[in-house]
């Protein structure tokens, strides 16, 4: 496929303790496909999210935790998990895809932090456009929630 490449799960030669970690990490659980688009944009289209409702709000989830403070990727995942009461864990491929999209739309900006413990961390900052988008997303969710509740939880008389 032109412009598309894939890589499959590798089996690196590692110690058994690390192997368990690798096996459990998201990047070894999946076959990740990275599409390098013509403009050099990277997206990770893999999704493993059970609920379309949740999937449709991932961008807003990310903006919400970035509204509190700038965070790097793993912090974003942890924050969303914590806010959901350990009920929802954002998968890393979805995270990177959303971050790319949000940055392209100028809802967030990224910058590299100081190299910490041997790795440089990429931090994300919400922009004023991102805050506006988040407010709109919250309003839309409230409207959708009302409609869904009326239909699903309402009475059955007269349809």
């Amino acid at each position, binding site marked *: 496929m032109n412009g598309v490449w894939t890589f499959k799960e590798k089996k690196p030669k*590692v110690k058994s303790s690390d192997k368990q970690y690798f096996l459990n990490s998201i990047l070894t659980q999946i076959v990740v496909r990275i599409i390098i688009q013509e403009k050099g944009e990277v997206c990770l289209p893999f999704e493993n999210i059970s609920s379309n409702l949740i999937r449709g709000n991932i961008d807003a989830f990310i903006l919400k935790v970035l509204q509190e403070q700038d965070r790097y990727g793993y912090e974003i995942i942890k924050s969303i998990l914590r806010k959901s009461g350990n009920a929802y864990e954002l998968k890393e491929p979805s995270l990177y895809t959303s971050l790319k999209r949000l940055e392209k739309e100028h809802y967030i900006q990224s910058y590299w932090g100081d190299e910490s413990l041997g790795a440089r961390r990429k931090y994300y900052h919400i922009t004023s456009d991102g805050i506006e988008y988040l407010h709109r997303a919250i309003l839309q969710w409230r409207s959708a929630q009302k409609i869904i509740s009326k239909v699903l939880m309402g009475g059955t008389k007269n349809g």
Partner: protein
Amino acid sequence: MDELKQYVDSLFSHQKASSETADLKDEIYSNMLARKRSGATGLSGS
């Protein structure tokens, strides 16, 4: 080079090198390192 770094490199072994993939590789590596150091193999229930 540590094994996690080697592992992340191996994920990109078939990818043509570019500044964008290098940045993505660094980002993935730092996030996986943070996850590993937090002691979480998977976050659920942690």
